[in-house]
C-alpha cells in the first residue's frame, strides 16, 4: 500500500483575546491508498481543524501551525505546512479534495451546478472548458445523479440534501484526487440517505484507489466504513487502532465512554450513559491528563500521575496505541466486564 498522507506532530493554535487556543496538540497519523481512516471525537476535539490544515485552509495570520503534513502529490511528497499560497492552491482540489458537513450551504446558490463543478477542473486545467463540462456531467453520472446533462444546468436549490452531497462528492472527484477528506459527510442527512452516501464513498474509494480521511462523531459511521480509527480528545489522539480493535477492545477510558454513550434499542427504560462533565477549555488545558476530571477509572491509576503528567501514546501492539496512566493489562480487565455488558 502506498502512503498518501503522513501527519507528524501537528500543532495548530489560534490567537484569541483570552489567550492561545491549542486546537490541535501533537497529532500524528498516516493514510494509505485504498483505505479509510477515521478521526472521531466530540465537538471542539480538533478533528476539523486537523483536516482543514491538510487543505491549507487556515487563515495565515490567525492560525499558528507547526509540525509537518507530508502529502503525496503524484509520487513526490510535499509538506503542506511550509508551502506558499500558490503551491497550496495548486494541490487543493487536485491532489487532495474535501467534502463538507452541510451540503445545503456548501454550494454557491447563484451558480449552476455544472459550472461549479467545471470550475474545479478549470482551476487546474485552464482554458479547457469543453473537457471541464464533459467531465462535470461524467462525474454527476458517476455519483448517481439521474439525467446528469439536464441537472447540470440547474441550481443548487433544485436539489435535495442527499443529491447535493452527491454533487459535492462529484465536485471533489473532478480532478481524480488521491486523497479525499470527508468532514462529517453524513451528519446533515437523513439516516436512509446517510447509508447511500457512505456506500457511494466506499465504491468510489475502490474505483479511484483513493485514501479517505473521514471526520465524524458518529461511531455507527465509523463501524460501517473505516479501516483504522483515531480517537481525538482535547486536540490529541487518545487512541488509535484498527476498527475492530477499537470497538471490541478499547484501551482509552474516553473511547469506552464513547462506546457506552451510544443509545441501544435493547436497553429499554435505561438512562443514556453519557460521559459526565464537559471537555476542557483549550485555552487552559490541565497539566495532567486532559480527560482526568471526567475519568471514572482514575482511582485505578497506580500513582497520582493523572493529575500531574500527560500520558504518552503507547501500546503493547504497535498498531493499537492509547494514552492512559493505568497499565494496559489492568485496563483490559477493568473494561472487559463493561464491554460484555455492551455487547450482550
Amino acid at each position: 500500500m502506498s502512503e498518501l498522507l503522513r501527519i507528524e506532530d501537528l500543532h495548530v493554535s489560534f490567537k484569541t483575546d483570552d489567550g492561545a487556543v491549542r486546537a490541535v496538540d501533537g497529532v500524528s497519523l498516516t493514510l494509505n491508498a485504498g483505505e479509510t481512516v477515521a478521526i472521531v471525537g466530540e465537538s471542539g476535539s480538533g478533528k476539523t481543524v486537523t483536516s482543514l490544515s491538510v487543505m491549507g485552509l487556515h487563515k495565515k495570520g490567525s492560525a499558528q501551525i507547526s509540525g509537518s503534513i507530508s502529502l503525496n502529490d503524484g509520487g513526490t511528497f510535499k509538506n503542506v505546512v511550509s508551502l506558499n499560497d500558490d503551491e497550496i492552491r495548486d494541490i487543493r482540489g487536485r491532489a487532495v479534495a474535501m467534502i463538507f458537513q452541510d451540503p445545503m450551504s456548501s454550494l454557491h446558490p447563484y451558480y449552476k451546478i455544472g459550472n461549479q463543478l467545471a470550475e474545479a477542473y478549470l482551476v487546474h486545467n485552464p482554458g479547457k472548458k469543453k473537457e471541464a463540462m464533459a467531465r462535470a456531467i461524467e462525474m454527476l453520472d458517476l455519483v448517481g445523479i439521474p439525467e446528469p446533462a439536464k441537472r447540470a444546468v440547474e441550481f443548487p436549490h433544485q436539489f435535495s440534501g442527499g443529491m447535493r452531497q452527491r454533487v459535492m462528492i462529484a465536485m471533489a472527484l473532478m480532478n481524480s484526487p488521491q486523497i479525499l477528506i470527508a468532514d462529517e459527510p453524513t451528519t446533515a442527512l437523513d439516516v436512509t440517505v446517510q447509508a447511500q452516501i457512505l456506500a457511494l464513498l466506499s465504491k468510489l474509494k475502490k474505483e479511484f484507489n483513493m485514501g479517505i480521511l473521514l471526520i465524524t462523531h458518529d461511531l455507527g459511521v465509523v463501524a460501517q466504513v473505516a479501516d483504522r480509527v483515531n480517537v481525538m480528545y482535547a486536540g490529541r489522539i487518545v487512541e488509535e487502532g484498527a476498527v475492530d480493535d477499537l470497538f471490541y477492545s478499547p484501551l482509552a477510558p474516553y473511547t469506552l465512554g464513547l462506546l457506552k454513550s451510544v443509545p441501544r434499542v435493547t436497553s429499554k427504560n435505561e438512562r443514556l450513559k453519557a460521559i459526565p462533565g464537559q471537555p476542557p477549555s483549550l485555552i487552559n488545558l490541565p497539566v495532567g491528563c486532559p480527560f482526568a476530571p471526567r475519568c471514572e477509572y482514575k482511582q485505578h491509576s497506580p500513582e497520582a500521575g493523572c493529575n500531574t503528567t500527560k500520558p504518552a501514546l503507547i501500546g503493547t501492539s504497535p498498531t493499537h496505541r492509547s494514552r492512559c496512566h493505568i497499565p494496559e493489562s489492568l485496563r483490559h480487565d477493568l473494561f472487559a466486564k463493561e464491554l460484555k455488558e455492551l455487547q450482550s
Partner: protein
Amino acid sequence: MLKFIGRRAIFAALTILIVSAVVFGIFSLLPFDPAALTCGQRCTDQIVEANRVRLGFDKPIYEQYWLFLSGIFLGRTYGSGSSAFSCPAPSFGYSFNENACVTNMLTEALPITISLAIGALLLWLTVGIGLGIVAAKFKNRWPDTSSSVFVLLATSLPTFVTGLALLIWVTIKWKIVPLSLSGYVSIFDNPFGFFQYFILPWITLAIAYAAIYTRFTRAALLETLGEDYIRTARAKGVGERVVFFKHTLRAVLAPLITLAGLDFAGLIGGAIITETIFNLPGLGRLTLRSVYEFDLSVVLATTILAAVVVIVMNLIVDMLYAVLDPRVRIT
C-alpha cells in the same frame, strides 16, 4: 416570467389606485375650502362660487375623485363657454396659484429631479461599493479604518451642511464650479453645462448615500466571505482574487440592487433639501412650494407621483432580483 410580470403589474395598478383614493380622501378632509384658496386678493363670494363650480368642488367627493381619475386618461375641461379652459390628458388638475395645468408643471420639474437622482445614484454606487470593497478587502488595516472615518463623517453630516459647504467653498470662494445663472439645460443640448449645473447637487446627495453603501457593502462582503460555499471555492483551489471578485461579490449584488432601487425611488419625491439649496426647480421644491401655498392640486399630484415611482421601482427591483437570484426565479 411573463405571467409573473403581468400579475405584479395588475397588483401595482391596484395599489396605485388605492393610494390615489387615500390621498384624495385625506385632502378632501382638510379644513380648507379649496374653492376659497383659488381666489386672489380681491376676492368676492361670487368668484369663489364660480370657481367652485368651474373646478367641480360643488360635486360630492366620489364624483370629484371620478373626475380626477378620468381626467388622467381623457383630459379635463374646466367651466363652460368663453371662460372655459382645458388641460389635455394626462391631466392631474389645475393650479390656480400658477395658472397652469399641473401636468405641465410636473413635466417641467421631472427631468431635473430625474437627472439629479440618476447622477447621484451612479456616483454613490461607484464610491460606496468601491469603498466597501476596499474596506472589506483590507479589513482592520488602514484603508478600512479611513473608510470608516468617511462613513462616520458622511452619515453624521446632514445634506444641508454638506450642500451649503460645497456651495460656499467650491462655487463662491474657490470658484471651481461657476454659479449657473442660465438654469437647467438638457444633457443632449449642452452636456458640459448639464454637468456643471448638477455636479455639486450630485456630490451632496452622493456623500450621504455613499456612506450607507460603503457600510452595507463591507458588512455584506465580510458576511459572505464566512459562508460555507466560499470555503468550498477555496477547497477547489480557486485563487483568492476570484473567490473575492466572483464568488463573494456576486452574492452581494442582489441585496445591493434592492437597496439602490428603493433609495432611488425615495429621491424622486424627496430631494427637497438639496433641490432647495441649489435652487433646482425639481419635484421636491415644487412640492415644498405647493405645501406653503396650499396649492392642493399640485400637492395631490406630486404625492401620487411619488407613490407611483416607489411602486414601479419596487416592481423593477423584484424583477431584477428574480434575474439575479435563481432561488426566487419564477417559473
